[in-house]
């Protein structure tokens, strides 16, 4: 059972990735793949998914499911899953899913293996792979309890464009949920954006990005000079923006922008998962870090183990020379 996520009138990209994961798992295990979409007036989304290779799609409906609250989502999905008893429940690891899945699993006396990047079949045993210690290590995790098993998949773990279309449209069943008055305790207000985004980093072809390794605010000037020499934009990992050294709109990662430039040059960035998910689609990744075990090197095409303050000044000069000569 794949539970997809819709927001602002469309299914998000991660939902397609999770559906791809569900199709791959169904093909390998021979299990039946069904999907569910939760909300108010979601039959359109259900129809969209029904065109894909799935056995059945459920539209779980209640006026109380809009806007999203963890109480309503957990209540509705608990009722639904208890009646359907799926073996495995897959969801994308979004901020919304993180908000309600631990509650839902606990309410059902179950557990969720969260933020997985893949799965393995070890004989009859299913293992789910997740990153630990900020990506320095990986773990294969199994369920030691009865079904339903909850799994959430990380952004980019599967290819959303690999979702197979169905031979014919799958049946859609609308399930109307009764959510008691008073069951929903949180009162969410409108979603808003803090400030108009001044820079759209998603359009940049070259990004020079800085992390904790930059050490002091005044050192940012050095990175800026490199970005200018390369004709690129300056960006940062979360701690830099948290410190107020660069505005929030230059933040790359799960809480910032997701980018895929031709060149991503990471200076003093260790490569925590939250950062990696925002830039791992970059065509070429260059990493400079003094810690040879930094996880950023796992995804780097070119790696320099060393002090960025030694490497960047001559790099600026060499880039300028190269540009002047071309």
């Amino acid at each position, binding site marked *: 059972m794949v539970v997809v996520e819709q927001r602002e009138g469309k299914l998000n990209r991660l939902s397609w990735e999770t559906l791809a994961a569900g199709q791959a798992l169904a093909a390998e295990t021979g299990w039946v793949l069904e999907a569910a979409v939760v909300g108010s007036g979601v039959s359109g989304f259900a129809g969209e998914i029904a065109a894909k290779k799935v056995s059945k799609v459920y539209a779980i409906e209640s006026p109380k499911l809009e806007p999203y609250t*963890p109480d309503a989502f*957990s209540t509705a999905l608990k009722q639904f899953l208890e009646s359907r008893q799926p073996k495995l429940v897959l969801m994308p690891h*979004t*901020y919304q899913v*993180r*908000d*309600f899945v*631990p*509650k839902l699993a*606990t*309410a059902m006396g179950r*557990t*969720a293996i*969260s*933020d997985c990047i893949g799965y393995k079949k*070890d004989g009859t045993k299913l293992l789910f792979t997740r*990153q*630990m*210690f*900020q990506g320095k*290590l*990986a*773990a*294969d995790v199994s369920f*030691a*309890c009865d079904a339903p098993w909850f799994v959430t998949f990380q952004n980019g773990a599967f290819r959303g464009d690999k979702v197979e279309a169905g031979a014919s449209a799958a049946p859609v069943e609308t399930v109307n949920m009764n959510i008691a008055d008073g069951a929903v*305790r*949180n*009162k969410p207000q*409108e*979603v*808003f954006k803090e400030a108009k*985004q001044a820079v759209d980093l998603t359009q940049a*072809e*070259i990004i020079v990005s800085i992390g904790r390794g930059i050490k002091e605010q005044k050192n940012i000037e050095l990175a800026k000079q490199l970005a200018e020499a*390369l004709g690129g934009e300056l960006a940062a990992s979360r701690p830099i*923006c*948290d410190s107020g050294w660069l505005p929030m709109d230059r933040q790359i990662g799960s*809480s910032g922008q997701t980018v895929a430039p031709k*060149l991503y040059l990471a200076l003093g960035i260790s490569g*925590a998962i939250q950062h990696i998910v925002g830039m791992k689609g970059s065509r*070429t990744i*260059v990493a400079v870090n003094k810690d040879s*075990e*930094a996880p950023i*090197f796992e*995804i*780097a*095409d*070119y*790696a320099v183990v*060393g002090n960025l303050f*030694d*490497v960047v*000044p*001559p*790099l600026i000069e060499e*880039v300028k020379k190269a*540009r002047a000569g*071309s």
Partner: protein
Amino acid sequence: MKILVCMKQVPQKDAPLKLNESGTWIREDVSYEVNEPDAFALEEALRQKEKHGGEVVVITSGPARSQQVLREALAKGADRAVHLEDNAFVGLDALNTARAFAAAIKEEKFDLIFTGLQSDDYGYAQTGVVLAELLGWPHATIIMQIENNDAGIRVKRELEAGFFQFVDMPLPAVLTIQSGINKLRYATLIGIKQAKNKPLRKVAMADVQSALSANLQKIERLYVPQKTKQTQFLEGPAGEVAKKLVDKLRNEVRVL
């Protein structure tokens, strides 16, 4: 306002990690520090207390070494601490960790419980939300601001891609705190001195065992991830490395 802050000790960010012999956990002989989002959760609790009065209690679970996290919190201004002391707490899954915390505080009445939004070791991002469900309390995650209002509190949730949302909710409640919600303070010398006389209650595994079950999920194998990319390491003196890199950028990456 009486606030409980759940904190965790994790390996230092740049600590080299070694696997244990069975390949199921890391070797314990590394340097530890407080889980970063938990430090922000503590800071927020201290600020709430300064604004509204009340008490800040900190709790952690783990072997003797993890008491350091509580000592630091007391030095920064927390009033009391609770330490679930046993090495076995380290291996508990999120559900059992939350059960242990709930059992350890069952005699107390808190208005708010804070956790960091996730830990730097397991990275489940679950314990706070699970604890809320066990207590029957509402929760909100990834919080960037907390204000009191007539009905309880108004919190600012961070959503993805630069979006935010205010949520009104009643108390008591559990909030998971995002890094960067505030500016961290340092412990003062006086604070460090005073911390020595602040109460620290120890809870043994035996005291909470009846609330726990076998873990519902199991780490079968922990390992160094296989590289998916062929990485070229550029070595030599800085000037030479710079030359090599520019050559790659020009001839292989073709961006210059």
